[in-house]
Structures are given as C-alpha cells and as structure tokens.
C-alpha cells in the first residue's frame, strides 16, 4: 500500500534545481542560510533546500511559476511507451508510492490504448494473476510492485512462477538516490539492491539508471521471461527516473527478438526414435510439456503413431483425458511394465521411478523394471538456481536430451515414421487396442467410484466435480485450478480434450496463489469469451480473498466453487502422522489445522466483495441448482461463488 509520508515536504531538489525558477527560490533560501552564518554558499544552498525550516520558514519561498512544479512528459510516460511497444495489455498492481509516476502514466498518459490497470488488493495476487494470465494466453502480464514491502508480499507468487516456469514481467519501484528521499517512510521503502530480495527465484533482474537503459533492460527482460525455460523477471525502476522530465522517444526502444525454443540435438532425437521403435512396452510421460496450443495435438500424434500409453503427470494440460491411450490413472502398473520411458519435460522424474515411504524409517523401492531405458527430453535443467531446491532429485538416465520437448516432437515423429516397418505398424496397432480396453476399464471404474456416497453430507469431492461438470460441459470453459486436493476427479470424469481447457499450475506447491491464478485466467477468459471455473480450497482463499473483489471490480467471468473442507487438510494429516509416530493423541491434530469454531461463511465473504454467492451447500441435492444459477451469473459477465461443505479429499 501507499506510504504514510504525509509530512510537509517543501520543494525537493528534484523539482527545484531543475526548474527555471531556481535562482529566485534558492536565492531566498540561500540568503537566509548565509545570514545564519553558513560557511560555503553551495552547502548552505543544499541545506536550505533540504530543510527549509532550518533556514527559516518565513524566508523560504516556493517558486512562483508553475513551470518549476510541473512538466509535460515524464520518464514514466516513456516507460509506458516501452510497455506499449511490447504489447503489454494489462498491469496488475496494488498501489505504492515508489511507482506513483508509473501508475499515473498508465492511467492518464496510457489512456484507452495503453495497458489497463488491474487493481489488486495484495501483491501476492498481482503476481498470481500474472501467472494465470500467462498460462492462459502465453503472454506475460506486467506487475507493478512497491519497493521492499510490496516486493516481499509478492515473493511467494514469484517463487510459484519461477518453480513453474511462467513468464511474469515485474517492475518494482525504488528511490536509489538517498539525497532525494523524504524522511522516514521513503527510507523504509528504498533499497540498495531491490532484486536481492527475490534474486534466488527470478530468471533475470536489473536496475537501470537511465531511460534508454530502462528500455533496453525491459525489452531484454521480456525476452528472457518468455524464452524457454520461461520465468519471472524484475526491473527495479528508480522513482527519480520515473518522475523527471524527458525528451527520450521511441528511438530508444530496441526491437524485441522472437527467440525460438531450442530443438534437441537431431542425432540424439533420432536415436530416441530408434529406441521407441524397438520397444515392446514404451511409455510416454508428459509433465511440464505442452507449452502452446500445438502441444497436445503433437503428443496425440506421437502416442497414436506408436500405440503407446501416455501418463500425464499434470504439469500442463498435455493429453486428452478421454483418449484411449491416456493411462494416467493406471500409472503404477503401466510404468512397472515399461521397457522404455520417454519423459517429456519431466518435473519429478525420480518420484515417477521410485516409491518412498514417509515413515520413521524411510524405505525406497524402484517402481520400474531394472531393464527399463529412461530417456528424457526437456529444458528442466536449464536455468537452475542454487538456493531453493525446486529442481527435484537428480536422476541418472540412459539419454538426457536438452531441448524444448514440444519443439522437438515434430523431429521425433518424423524419425519414427521413417523408421517404422509394416510389422511394427501391425504390432503397435494391436498394442493400442489392448491399451484402449485398459483405459476404458479405468474410466468405467472411476465413473462408478464417483457415485459412491452420492447422497452423503458433507458432499463427496466426486459428486462435487460430477455436478460441476454437468453445469459447465456445454459452455466454453477453462478449469483454473489444480485438482490434486479433490482427488483429481476432473481428469477422471471430465472430457478435457482441448489445450486451453485446463490451466495446470502446481507451481511451488504453496497455498495463497490459487484464487489469484484463477482471477488471472478469468481476465484472459473475458477477452476470449470463455468462463473460468475455479475449484477453490478454503485455506488458499483466506490468504488473499481480496482477489474476489478484483474479480467483481473488473467484471471477470469467474465461477468459484468452494472445496470447503474446513481445514488445512494436508497439514492435518501431517500432524496426525506425527502424533501416531509419537504414539500420542491423534485427536488433538485438529488443533492449529482446522477452520471451525466459528465456521467461515464464504458466501458472505464473497458478497461483501461484490461477488454473487450462495452457500454453504451442505445437502448434496441442493448443489446442482446452485451451480446452474452461478453459471448463469458468470455468463452474464460477473463472478460468482458457491460455497460447498465437502469431504476432505
């Protein structure tokens, strides 16, 4: 938020010494200072300007011409021109004085054609919205952050973006020149090195010292943010640079390079093709794979060509949930039988290849055959940083190809087509038929499982997701949330067969970003004519519920369905585990992990933010009508929330 620096300020060196009326004003102040016996005229001038009260308030005269106090074009206007040149459509921000120049330039100088300012109530939400928007559109959204305080508020979401390789273009205000800072608050909100606060988890950062430098660094930052592997970038923007007059124009803005993602070494990719052709039980594991709309189609082509099962590990929306070769929910059996595993942009490959127990004496066993060949194709190993361990456990594999998997797949597909014999083609078709039967069995099993406890209260997560599917299936929808906490029912029950339909972003695995990501997706949906569907954990929402107000304020088509299990349930289970390990009272695990007494009314919370809401729904028969009413509201261009008391998972 803005600072508290409301003390009388006089005229700063910024405005005074650069203006035409310097001589008169400073001369008056200087006269008083000299009369007081100041030694050197220059020192006295500076002292008087900094501290008019010391020089004598009666003698201190403000400049009497507006020219000394106003200007026509500021550095921040030029900065907005840079954002326009990059095609940035939105800026998400919670206001802060260190970027007041930029803020005002966006809303006035930028005008209708400039980036639209999205009002956020917490910086964690600002960055989370940028994550959702980027995943829904492929384009970064700009975020303005207040120095120190705002940047630290944002840090969790920045780590989320870093861990999930999502581009975010961030600008943090700062007042570098100590001599220019107002007393108290402006010192609290200034830093020697803004980027140091988050450098462990941004891809690149800079603190430019001129407007030309700003333009170059911002274009470079954008390029870095979107190039593979993508990530958040930070420009520290000097307040003085924002607020001073300038004549710098568009000629100072470099052209943005269209960086192409790296394709894996062609010889190595062809060798992978040979191994896949020779395999009897190949398995394709896709994690943070599908980078563009083309990714899902390419993977379908590869799987159908080989007649190979696909395990979608969920880092992105990689493969149609109802495809006959989708064996994601029979993973242990499929992986155990594999003789070749091709991992595309793996995130936690070790976790796929092993089983480890969370017991006092940890045991680890292999989840795969000792004869399996593991081949990786991806960019996960690029851009590692040292401190935060989001890179997961190191795995020795049979071939590790560095290259963007999606960009490399056409080469792989062509190589397989070239090497395929008629006998292989027949064998692969037979394999595909058997796998289709296997996946159909799994889908039938899951549909039946979702009916279990259909009439129970609290509502089962199976019914929650089944009813939600019925309410949205005929709309143009996008699921914005991770489904792990609802037992992955959407993937098990819904037909998710279009690339845009599921924004998967486990990110850093923290909570507090879900509602912001959902709002960012909804911002994209608004222009796309879609509705955003968010299955929202209660604990997550409470970190930053102000995102609901942002959704209402900006008329975002966001349907939020509360998975209200009244607890930080993952943590509850952890405390239970500790109690049982220590042979103590497991019943007391509810202390510090549950959200009851009083029960939180999320419908009232949402209504207070201007969001249409119903609930809490405790009777399962009342769920479907409530969802239908909510969908109608969202289709009219307003957010809606349905609170549902649910089973824990």
């Amino acid at each position, binding site marked *: 938020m803005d600072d508290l620096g409301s003390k009388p300020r006089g005229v700063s060196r910024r405005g005074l010494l650069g203006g035409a009326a310097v001589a008169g004003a400073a001369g008056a102040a200087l006269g008083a200072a000299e009369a007081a016996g100041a030694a050197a005229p220059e020192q006295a001038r500076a002292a008087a300007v900094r501290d008019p009260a010391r020089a004598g308030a009666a003698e201190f005269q403000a400049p009497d011409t507006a020219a000394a106090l106003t200007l026509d074009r500021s550095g921040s206007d030029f900065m907005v021109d840079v954002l326009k040149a990059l095609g940035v459509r939105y800026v998400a921000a919670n206001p802060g004085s260190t970027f007041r120049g930029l803020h005002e330039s966006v809303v006035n100088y930028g005008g209708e054609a400039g980036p639209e300012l999205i009002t956020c109530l917490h910086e964690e939400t600002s960055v989370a919205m940028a994550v959702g928007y980027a995943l829904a559109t492929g384009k970064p959204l700009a975020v303005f952050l207040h120095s120190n305080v705002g940047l630290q508020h944002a840090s969790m979401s920045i780590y989320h973006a870093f861990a999930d390789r999502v581009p975010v273009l961030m600008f943090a205000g700062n007042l570098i020149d100590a001599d220019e800072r107002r007393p108290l608050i402006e010192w609290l909100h200034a830093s020697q090195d803004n980027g140091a606060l988050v450098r462990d988890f941004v891809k690149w950062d800079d603190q430019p010292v001129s407007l030309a430098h700003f333009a170059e660094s911002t274009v470079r930052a954008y390029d870095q943010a979107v190039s593979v592997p993508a990530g958040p970038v930070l420009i520290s923007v000097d307040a003085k640079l924002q607020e001073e007059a300038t004549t710098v124009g568009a000629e100072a803005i470099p052209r943005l390079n269209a960086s192409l993602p790296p394709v894996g070494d062609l010889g190595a990719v062809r060798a992978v093709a040979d191994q896949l052709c020779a395999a009897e039980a190949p398995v394709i594991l896709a994690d943070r794979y599908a980078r563009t709309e083309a990714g899902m189609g390419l993977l379908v082509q590869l799987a159908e060509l080989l007649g190979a099962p696909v395990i979608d590990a969920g880092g992105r929306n990689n493969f149609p949930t109802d495809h006959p070769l989708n064996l994601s929910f029979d993973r242990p059996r499929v992986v155990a039988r594999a003789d070749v595993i091709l991992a595309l942009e793996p995130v936690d490959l070790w976790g796929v290849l092993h089983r480890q127990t969370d017991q006092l004496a940890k045991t680890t066993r292999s989840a795969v055959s000792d004869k399996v060949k593991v081949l990786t194709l991806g960019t996960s190993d690029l851009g590692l940083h040292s401190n935060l361990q989001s890179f997961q456990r190191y795995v020795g594999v049979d071939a590790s190809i560095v290259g963007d998997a999606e960009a490399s797949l056409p080469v792989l597909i062509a190589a397989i087509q070239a090497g395929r014999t008629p006998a292989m083609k027949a064998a692969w078709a037979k394999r595909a038929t058997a796998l289709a039967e296997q996946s159909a069995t799994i889908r039938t099993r899951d549909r039946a499982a979702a009916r279990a406890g259909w009439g129970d*209260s609290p509502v*089962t997560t199976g019914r929650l997701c089944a009813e939600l599917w019925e309410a949205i299936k005929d709309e143009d929808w996008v699921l914005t949330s991770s489904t792990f906490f609802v*037992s992955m029912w959407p993937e098990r029950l819904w037909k998710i067969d279009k690339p845009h339909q599921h924004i998967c972003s486990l990110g850093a695995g923290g909570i507090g970003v879900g509602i912001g990501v959902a709002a960012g997706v909804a911002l994209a949906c608004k222009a796309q004519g879609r509705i955003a569907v968010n299955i929202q954990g209660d604990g997550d929402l409470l970190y930053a519920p102000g995102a609901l107000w942002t959704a209402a304020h900006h008329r975002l088509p966001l349907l939020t369905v509360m998975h209200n299990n009244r607890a930080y349930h993952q943590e509850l289970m952890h405390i239970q585990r500790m109690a049982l*390990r220590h042979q103590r009272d*497991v*019943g007391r695990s*509810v202390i510090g992990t549950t959200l009851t007494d009083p029960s939180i009314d999320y419908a009232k919370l949402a209504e207070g933010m201007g969001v249409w809401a119903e609930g809490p729904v405790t009777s399962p028969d009342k769920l479907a009508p409530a969802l239908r009413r909510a969908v109608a509201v969202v289709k009219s261009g307003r957010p809606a929330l349905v609170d549902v008391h649910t089973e*824990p998972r």
Partner: protein
Amino acid sequence: MARLVSTAPLAAALALLSGAAAQAAPASQPPSGKDLYAARGCSACHGTHGLGSISGPRLAGTPLPFEAFATQVRNPRAQMPPYSRQVLSDAELRLIYDFIKTQTP
C-alpha cells in the same frame, strides 16, 4: 499397556472429521466404531464413510478379514502411519473394523 489417548477432544475431532453427519456419543456411553473412525483420524485420508480418496484407499465394505486389516493398521505397508496399541486398543480397532464393514462401497 495403558492407553494414553484421552477422549477429551473427541467431540471437536468428530465435528471436523465427520462433518455434519457425525454425532458425538453421549458422555456416558463408550464411543461407537463410527465415532472412533472419525476421532482417530481414519476419515481424514479414507473419507467420512470410508469411500477412499487420493490420500487413502477405500475401506467401505472391506473384503479383508479382521486379522489382515489389523496387521495393516499396526504395521502398515506404504504410506499409512502406524496405529500402535498405545493410541488404538484392540477393542477399538475391532469397533472401527465393524463400522467400515457396514459401509456401502
């Protein structure tokens, strides 16, 4: 071995873990299998009615004989935390087993 677990937080645990359907046993009565299933945290992973979730398999109507069920609870395979007799007596375990056997899978 004496059981250290008190029943004091039972009502609070039931209120959370069993949701609206749960009714704590009157103080004068021993807890039922359903009460214990909730209060000892089984429902957190396996669901209020034992239907299972991504955190724990389905228990409702389990085909396991009691001895096999008890072995899994006392010396679990994989991720399930161990329930020693210090936190769950044999009698209580039996009540829980009888409860989940009655649940519709």
